[in-house]
């Protein structure tokens, strides 16, 4: 089959690779009908996530049609259309039983690697490094889906791929980012990063009853998109974000701040940017947390900082004094996607939201490398690339 492989920093290639086969009894093999490039794939592309290996198949946001099931899968049959959650989860461990699927205790065969970096291991993730399992991803014609009886959700035929595809990752991720803010009437929510996850966080915050949402980015086309969803916007290259947020909230600060940026944030001041960038290059810091630092500083006293942007390892100069003294709460997670599939599918059906609004480009799987370049350099107002094999 054809699959998009990581071939080193800044290099992906669509190559011929063997077809997947069943390895565990609860596996399913699916023929992929739609897949995407996620913002977090750019962290892999740019070489910021450790333990990638040449030849790794990328992609963790995908859906398709079941073609084969292992003997342990009784709820799916060939021909079923399913959306696959990006974290792999067994459904039986303590974490899964409490709905914390992205920290499944059994789905990462390389848990030992992750433990060295994180203390304990999170769940395995499709196409997202060897410390998260060494599972091939979904930018391919076929994929093996472990624990297919637990994660995937069946999609009725009347909903097109583009409406449900993002249930795999960015929609529930944005949703959970807003949910962690525990929004109550009157709340002002600030969202750093107006990429696809940020857009869904904005939309979700409004659906949960936020009074105002403020989006922060540096690309005007992304901010315009946020405005169309009802958000106010700040371009951090033009204004001092902390001052602006203080003004907009009459001194209080946003009630909750969502970091939808993660490890490759930017800073308008070259000195500040250069400081963390240099440390990243020297490998003494893995993540540049500009957005996170700002979110902590901006948040109102007693507020919540919700972290859904991806972090990999260590950050420096974290404003711990601000966090502790001002009674902040910080929450973070890779999204527990399995938890949200059913309720969010219902919302799509009910017409509360049509997730396809983030799509900017449609391409063939063979053009994936061009998609990565466009997405990375924000060419042609690129926001979300959907690939079809």
């Amino acid at each position, binding site marked *: 089959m054809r699959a998009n492989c990581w071939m080193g920093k800044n290099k992906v290639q669509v190559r011929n690779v063997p077809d997947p086969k069943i390895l565990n009894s609860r596996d399913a*093999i699916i023929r992929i009908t739609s897949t995407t490039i996620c913002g977090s794939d750019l962290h892999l592309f740019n070489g910021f996530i450790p333990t990638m290996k*040449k*030849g790794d198949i990328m992609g963790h946001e995908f859906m398709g049609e079941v073609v084969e099931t292992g003997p342990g899968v009784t709820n799916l049959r060939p021909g079923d259309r399913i959306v696959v959650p990006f974290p792999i989860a067994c459904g039986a461990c303590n974490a899964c039983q409490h709905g914390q699927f992205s920290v499944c205790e059994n789905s990462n*065969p*390389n848990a030992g690697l992750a433990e060295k970096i994180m203390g304990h291991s999170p769940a395995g993730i499709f196409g997202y490094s*060897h410390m998260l*399992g*060494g599972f091939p991803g979904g930018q391919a014609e076929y994929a093996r889906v472990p624990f297919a009886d637990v994660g995937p959700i069946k999609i009725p035929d009347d909903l097109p791929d583009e409406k449900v595809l993002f249930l795999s990752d960015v929609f529930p991720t944005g949703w959970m980012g807003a949910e962690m803010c525990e929004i109550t009437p009157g709340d002002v929510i600030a969202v750093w990063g107006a990429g696809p996850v940020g857009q869904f966080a904005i939309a979700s915050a409004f659906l949960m009853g936020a009074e105002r949402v403020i989006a922060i980015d540096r690309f005007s086309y992304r901010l315009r998109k946020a405005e169309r969803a009802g958000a106010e916007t700040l371009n951090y290259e033009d204004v001092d974000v902390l001052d602006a947020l203080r003004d907009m909230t009459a001194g209080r600060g946003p009630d909750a701040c969502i970091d939808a940026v993660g490890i490759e944030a930017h800073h308008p001041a070259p000195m500040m940017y250069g400081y963390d960038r240099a440390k990243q290059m020297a490998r003494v810091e893995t993540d540049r947390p500009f957005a996170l630092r700002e979110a902590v500083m901006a948040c109102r006293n007693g507020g919540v900082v919700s972290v859904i942007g991806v972090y990999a390892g260590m950050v420096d100069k974290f404003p711990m004094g601000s966090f502790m003294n001002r009674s902040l709460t910080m929450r973070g997670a890779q999204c527990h996607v399995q938890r949200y599939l059913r309720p969010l599918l219902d919302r799509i059906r009910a017409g509360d939201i049509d997730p396809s609004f983030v799509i900017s480009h449609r391409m063939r799987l063979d053009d994936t490398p061009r998609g990565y370049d466009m997405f990375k350099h924000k060419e042609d107002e690129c926001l979300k690339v959907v690939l079809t094999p």
Partner: protein
Amino acid sequence: MTERDHHNLEGLARGLGWASLGLGAVQLSAPDMVRHMSGVDDSSLSRVMVPLVGVRELFHAAVLLGSRRPGPWVWTRVAGDVMDLTSLGCAVSHRRGKRRRRTMTATAAVAGITAVDLYTAIRAGRRPWAYGLSLHAAITVKRPRDEVYGFWRDLENLPRFMIHLRSVQVIDQRRSRWIAKGPAGKDVEWDAQIVEDRPEELIAWRSAAGARVRNSGSVSFTDAPGGRGTEVRVELRFDPPGGMLGAAFARMLGEHPDQQVRDDMRRFKQVMETGEVVRSEGSPEGVHAIRQLRQRPAQPVMSGGRP
């Protein structure tokens, strides 16, 4: 050796690390002074050698001051001492007069340091192997205690999660025959007997007389608090084949014995909770320390047509 002696030795090893740091700093910042003092200021080779030795000293400092158990790392200093003595010996034989005296003084100093290093390395390295190997690991399994105990009590299940076991054959209530994959592809076989069996609490076993690798083990089961399942604690003791050398060699290959037991327990949890060992294309055998170091690419395992 008492606990206290051991503690003192680790302190001595740290002290040697600080000495390396000081010496390395001087050799890098004032190489000419070092060359003069050791009487080799007439050699152009020493212009390169002294800073290089300085870098090496910083390496000693890094490993001795950076590790939790510095003892074994003193061997790197011993190796460095041998190098220094060799080059100084060479220098002495080529010099006369004042320079020769300075070179000989330097040699004597290094010889003295070598003695201290050697003493520390040998003494500090002795302890871990004094009583063979004792390994332990613990894990929480989200299943009721009777079920977890019952699965383990049927010893023939052990190879399903203990990757180094080829098979266990139960002979009777107490006795069983174990076959393990030994080093260099040779199987090791022994008889074991259960020496204690408290249902739903503890199983302890020991190799029978005449086993080539004497070993024993025990596993205990307790309720995890708040309905979290069962806490399983396993302890294995054995004389590693090939003695200390074999164990050190296995460690070099990534077969850290503690890691092995931890891997076994992870697979045990997977088997109990999900029914089988979880595999990925990067780690097709499932959890395995060696495989974690040498991952396959995350690509399907074997070619074969899709219908």
